[in-house]
């Protein structure tokens, strides 16, 4: 790893391009807070599609899923594949209907239907998840940067945070949409090249014969059906309430553009999501089962690729992580500004004041995420900790609100379901039985989400029936 010399011109050119797009967006596109949050609702389908894909593809998925695949085989696909399949589903059933409400943030939706208490509860649960996700992605980016530059994790966190914050601060959602599209192509080229060179450099498919476990390349992998179903459910449930992705649909110029953007973006990422498991499987074949999960991707990059290709992959990692990080930072900044400042602290703030407060919140969110990762660096588990809580509380409620009119008339049930679902997950996280604590993920005997989601859905169904029956009688 010490012998690897990245092409600095490539990395610097990439960063200057991102910075330039931030300046362009700030000068020509951003005049008010809505431009920062949802790009003035003026974006076309392809920009949405690549941005959705880039948001789902990040350093955590590249480094983390390839590490998970080293232990669980091809079935590690489901740690990300479930998210993108749910995105395709949302393009038909959720996004068009959410656009009809003209919301910018998900907590806004809760206030319009039920009132401020619901807004605050949903806001807390969403921020818990999004800050965890932001911290996880920032951490994966910092790990790579600290390896390349040979600097400490703290210095690395400060550097990657600053690089991303600059263009989000300047151009908000406009800068994110354009940079995401560019970042998507860089990530695709770098990651696919790593798989191709991995196969070529290791003598083709024959290298996989060294893996003795027959389940490794099976549909359920070494984790078995229970583990795979947990990944499927966690992915689907998180996606239903994933505000960073939902906001892409709200940024579209029309409902048709939002639908197409989600559909195309979902399909592109569904196909791509096999890349990290392939890298992990190859890593296991080349370096053996004893290699640490979080080392697989970097060993492959520095060992198999190297040279110019290694530099492209490094830029790909930067691009993948920055494209997700920028989105989650922007989303939380929109929550801080719209759901807290505009709603409760200063409802009469001038448009200019709102815009600058939004930008300050971008910086605040970046600093908070870096601090969280620094004190709790377990990468993918961090990503999923808040995800499980949100996935068993806000997410099923949002899906139910969109699909079932009676749920929109059951405020007590909605509030109770969110709080009870979150409590069940937190209790299970504390008291549940852990099978194995790995370097990348914690493996549960029964994943908390498999308890939490059915509980919340049952509560929602019974409570809605009871509450709306009572009103109608």
């Amino acid at each position, binding site marked *: 790893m010490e012998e690897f010399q990245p092409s600095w011109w490539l990395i610097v050119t990439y960063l200057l391009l991102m910075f330039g797009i931030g300046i362009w967006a700030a000068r020509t596109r*951003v005049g008010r807070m809505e431009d920062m949050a949802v790009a003035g609702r003026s974006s076309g389908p392809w920009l949405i599609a690549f941005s959705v894909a880039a948001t789902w593809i990040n350093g955590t998925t590249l480094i983390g899923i390839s590490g998970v695949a080293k232990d669980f085989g091809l079935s590690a696909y489901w740690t990300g594949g479930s998210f993108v399949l*749910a995105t395709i*589903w949302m393009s*038909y059933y959720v996004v068009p209907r959410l656009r009809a409400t003209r919301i910018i943030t998900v907590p806004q939706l809760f206030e319009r239907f039920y009132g401020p208490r619901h807004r605050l509860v949903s806001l807390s649960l969403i921020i818990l998840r999004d800050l965890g996700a932001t911290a996880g992605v920032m951490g994966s980016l910092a790990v790579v940067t600290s390896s390349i530059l040979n600097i400490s994790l703290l210095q690395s966190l400060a550097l990657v945070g600053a690089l991303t914050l600059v263009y989000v601060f300047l151009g908000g959602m406009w800068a994110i949409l354009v940079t995401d599209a560019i970042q998507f192509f860089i990530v695709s080229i770098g990651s696919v090249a790593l798989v191709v060179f991995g196969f070529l450099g290791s003598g083709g498919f024959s290298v996989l014969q060294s893996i003795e476990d027959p389940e490794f390349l099976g549909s359920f992998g070494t984790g078995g059906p229970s583990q795979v179903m947990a990944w*499927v459910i966690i992915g689907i449930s998180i996606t239903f309430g994933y505000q960073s992705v939902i906001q892409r649909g709200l940024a579209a110029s029309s409902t048709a553009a939002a639908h197409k953007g989600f559909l195309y973006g979902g399909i592109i990422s569904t196909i791509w999501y096999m890349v990290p498991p392939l890298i992990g499987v190859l890593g296991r074949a080349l370096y053996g089962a004893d290699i640490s999960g979080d080392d697989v991707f970097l060993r492959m990059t520095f060992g198999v690729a190297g040279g110019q290709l290694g530099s492209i992959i490094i830029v790909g990692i930067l691009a993948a992580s920055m494209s997700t990080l920028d989105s989650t930072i922007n989303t939380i900044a929109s929550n801080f500004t719209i759901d807290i400042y505009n709603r409760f602290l200063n409802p009469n703030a001038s448009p200019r004041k709102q815009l600058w407060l939004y930008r300050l919140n971008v910086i605040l969110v970046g600093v908070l995420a870096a601090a969280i990762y620094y004190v709790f660096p377990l990468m993918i588990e961090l990503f999923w900790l808040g995800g499980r809580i949100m996935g068993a509380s806000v997410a099923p409620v949002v899906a139910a609100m969109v*699909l079932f009119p009676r749920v929109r008339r059951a405020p007590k049930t909605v509030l109770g379901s969110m709080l009870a679902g979150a409590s069940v997950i937190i209790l299970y996280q504390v008291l549940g039985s852990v099978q194995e604590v790995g370097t990348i993920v914690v493996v549960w005997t029964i994943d908390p989400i498999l308890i939490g989601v059915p509980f919340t859905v049952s509560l929602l169904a019974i409570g809605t029936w009871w509450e709306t029956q009572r009103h109608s009688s």
Partner: protein
Amino acid sequence: MEPAKTDPQDHKGESYRYDSHELDLMDRVELPRMNPWLSLALLVLAGFAYVWIWGVLLRG
């Protein structure tokens, strides 16, 4: 700079609550005919087929 598209609803303030007839605003957008949960299950099955195909390919 292009002006952002606005809607009368955007100007109702952050404490705005829907009245009874606005609660079904979302239902004006028609959904596909296929049952949503069936379509989700089919998508997941398609995902399993995708993983299975890769498994077959890699086993040679």
